[in-house]
């Protein structure tokens, strides 16, 4: 989920450039970033937690920024988040690259090292997770490794801070490694010929030319911005000439050179004393993706979440806080004092009236939604840190195939259960534009975010399990049918699943607590203002007399088509701002006995299908363009009312919950 708020505008730049953390996904770059800057960024046990650059001031070096980048599997990059990492190297002055490598997977780590070492930038390799490497019987001769590569290699355990001090020392004195691989002659000729045509960059011309020869899109876009057409033609024909000498792509030829070098190097520096790791975690990890056992495990996790968030959080906690604390003590007290201190009716109404900032906005945000999202974020952080989430991709791959996607899309979808806005950003980990578009559509239409989900569970759980199942069934049905339809309509092919599964780990309680706290802070900063804005809007509409008129105007839809009391219109009005705010209004109506079970289900289905919030629309516009954002919005709202009405008439026909 990470947080929806943008990072504080740290425009740290210096002439010497920043320190860039690079490496594969899920190797601990963000943990190391925290160690080096003291700034908190989200850390989880799955690849794709970081999809943007994060910046922080280095603790150990004046005027120097440390930049955390999204994980990169290989150069040239395949996905948008990987492209961001490479683009950073092309665009920004970099003082040193710190590659974060996985000690237990040295071959894979070194394959990226040799590519980075050729960039012509000062470099240090932090061999991270050395504790896991040791536990698996992997021992590495880091001195010999450093000697052969000509840059420092520092074993680290970032989560414990081991090795960070010596890493800092090496970074301070880092220099450009004298490291160069020899490629087949035709490629060397191409390199010599084209290097002078390419514009000057912070990278070694040879490295830039290698990227160009590999046909990398990011480099291509960067070059196109900087050279005239004639040079571009020369570059393109030079590349074609080189490519015509091989039967396979140039990138494959280059990679083979890297593979051969790394194989020889690893044979010299690694000793495997046998895998001692087949512990409980490894066995449990296998069961979570097993074709049979995966299902009861998933069901148990879902039920546990339902119980903790729906029954305990939305039921009991909200009961105490909203019912007893706010309802009987805080709100009567605040109301009394406001009336005593501010005897002007208009002002006191604005604060503690029917649409009062305190009695509606703050009470909804603090007493109703906050306890629910707290329980949800706790469960969610536990799941994230355990490494279970990517395993869902394996289990759900077939389901997502029907939607034109692959199991990798499960990750943004599940993250959407935390915050849809942030999950929209995470769609960058998907491989094609088509997949990202499909995933964003699904997210906006039918994935309830934590606040929404909590309110739904609290409200429908209070009625019956059947009510919850009807809601879930309809929302899932819409997700599947719209998804399947969109997959047919949007041109392009589905890509197959390839995903690394992180080891299952026991979540570290301190990280879970810190992460949950960070998310709650985000919630308070991001959601409370919108709740207050929505309340102020209702207050203004009410005082100007526009609200009754609006309610009247919406009556044919809300009462006629959906079969709800006219007062439910106010919930839908604020639902345009944030649907969970609308849902909370409906929750309160139900608590006051204003909704039958049938009406509650219909209202909840309708508002769940709404666009999540204004922020998510802006995020879609930012990621996929304004036209896409408008199109998705224009599709979703009518569809929400259409489905809600259809459900109302169906339930009426079968006589459920009237």
């Amino acid at each position, binding site marked *: 989920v990470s947080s929806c708020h943008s990072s504080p505008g740290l425009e740290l730049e210096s002439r010497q450039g920043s320190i860039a953390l690079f490496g594969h996904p899920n190797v601990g770059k963000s943990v190391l970033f925290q160690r080096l800057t003291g700034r908190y960024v989200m850390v989880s046990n799955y690849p794709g937690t970081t999809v943007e650059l994060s910046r922080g001031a280095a603790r150990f070096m004046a005027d120097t920024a440390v930049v955390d980048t999204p994980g990169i599997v*290989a150069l040239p990059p395949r996905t948008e988040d990987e492209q961001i990492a490479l683009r950073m190297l092309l665009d920004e002055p970099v003082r040193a690259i710190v590659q974060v490598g996985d000690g237990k997977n040295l071959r894979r780590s070194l394959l990226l090292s040799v590519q980075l070492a050729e960039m012509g930038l000062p470099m240090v390799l932090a061999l991270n997770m050395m504790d896991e490497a040791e536990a698996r019987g992997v021992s590495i001769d880091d001195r010999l490794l450093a000697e052969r590569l000509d840059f420092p290699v520092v074993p680290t355990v970032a989560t414990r801070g081991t090795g960070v001090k010596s890493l800092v020392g090496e970074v301070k004195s880092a220099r450009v490694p004298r490291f160069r691989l020899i490629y087949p002659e035709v490629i060397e000729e191409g390199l010599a010929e084209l290097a002078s045509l390419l514009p000057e960059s912070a990278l070694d011309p040879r490295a830039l030319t290698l990227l160009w020869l590999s046909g990398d899109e990011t480099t291509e876009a960067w070059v196109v911005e900087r050279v005239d057409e004639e040079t571009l033609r020369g570059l393109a024909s030079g590349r074609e000439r080189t490519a015509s000498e091989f039967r396979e792509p140039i990138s494959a030829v280059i990679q083979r050179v890297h593979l051969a070098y790394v194989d020889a190097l690893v044979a010299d520096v690694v000793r495997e004393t046998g895998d001692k790791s087949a512990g409980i975690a490894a066995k449990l990890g296998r069961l979570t993706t097993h074709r049979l*056992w995966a299902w009861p495990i998933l069901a148990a996790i879902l039920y546990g979440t339902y119980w903790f968030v729906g029954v305990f959080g939305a039921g009991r906690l909200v009961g105490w806080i909203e019912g007893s604390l706010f309802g009987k003590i805080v709100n009567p007290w605040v109301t009394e004092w406001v009336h005593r201190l501010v005897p002007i009716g208009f002002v006191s109404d604005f604060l503690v009236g029917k649409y009062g900032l305190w009695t509606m906005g703050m009470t909804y945000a603090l007493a109703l939604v906050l306890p629910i999202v707290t329980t949800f974020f706790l469960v969610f952080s536990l799941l994230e840190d355990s490494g279970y989430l990517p395993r869902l991709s394996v289990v759900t791959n077939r389901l997502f195939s029907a939607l034109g996607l692959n199991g990798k899309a499960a990750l943004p979808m599940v993250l959407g259960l935390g915050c849809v806005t942030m999950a929209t950003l995470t769609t960058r980990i998907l491989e094609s534009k088509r997949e990202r578009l499909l995933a964003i559509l699904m997210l906006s239409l039918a994935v309830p975010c934590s606040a929404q989900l909590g309110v739904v569970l609290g409200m429908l759980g209070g009625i019956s399990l059947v009510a919850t199942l009807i809601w879930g069934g309809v929302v899932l049905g819409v997700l599947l049918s719209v998804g399947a339809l969109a997959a047919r309509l949007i041109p392009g092919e589905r890509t*197959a*699943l390839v995903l690394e599964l992180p080891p299952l780990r026991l979540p570290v309680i301190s990280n879970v607590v810190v992460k949950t706290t960070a998310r709650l802070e985000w919630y308070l900063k991001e959601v409370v203002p919108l709740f207050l804005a929505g309340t102020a809007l209702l207050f203004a509409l009410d005082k100007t007399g526009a609200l009754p008129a609006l309610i009247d105007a919406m009556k044919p839809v809300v009462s006629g088509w959906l079969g709800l009391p006219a007062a439910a219109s106010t919930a839908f009005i604020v639902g345009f701002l944030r649907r969970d705010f609308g849902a909370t209004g409906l929750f309160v109506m139900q608590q006051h006995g204003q909704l039958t079970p049938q009406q509650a289900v219909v209202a909840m289905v309708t508002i769940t299908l709404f666009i999540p919030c204004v922020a998510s629309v802006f995020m879609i516009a930012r990621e996929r363009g304004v036209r896409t954002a408008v199109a998705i919005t224009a599709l979703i709202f009518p569809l929400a009312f259409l489905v809600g009405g259809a459900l109302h008439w169906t339930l009426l026909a079968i006589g459920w919950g009237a």
Partner: protein
Amino acid sequence: MTLADVPPGSRARIDTLDGLSASRCHQLQAYGLAPGRWVKVVQQSPVTVIRVEHLDLAFESDIARGINVEAEADRDRPVRRRPRWV
């Protein structure tokens, strides 16, 4: 034979990745599925999961079918009985 034919629990040596697109091949090799390397098959259903070095990698059977392998000779493999349900 292809990687899809290797029973769970067995090891196999990657021969070629001929059946895959160039970019897919590039990605898998970056993970370590390169010709000559040994991998261990963890499961084949619902998707193929293999272990290469100390990394578990999941991919669809279609991809497994595009990877030609040489299976570990039977006599080299220690006989090990596993409970059926694991």
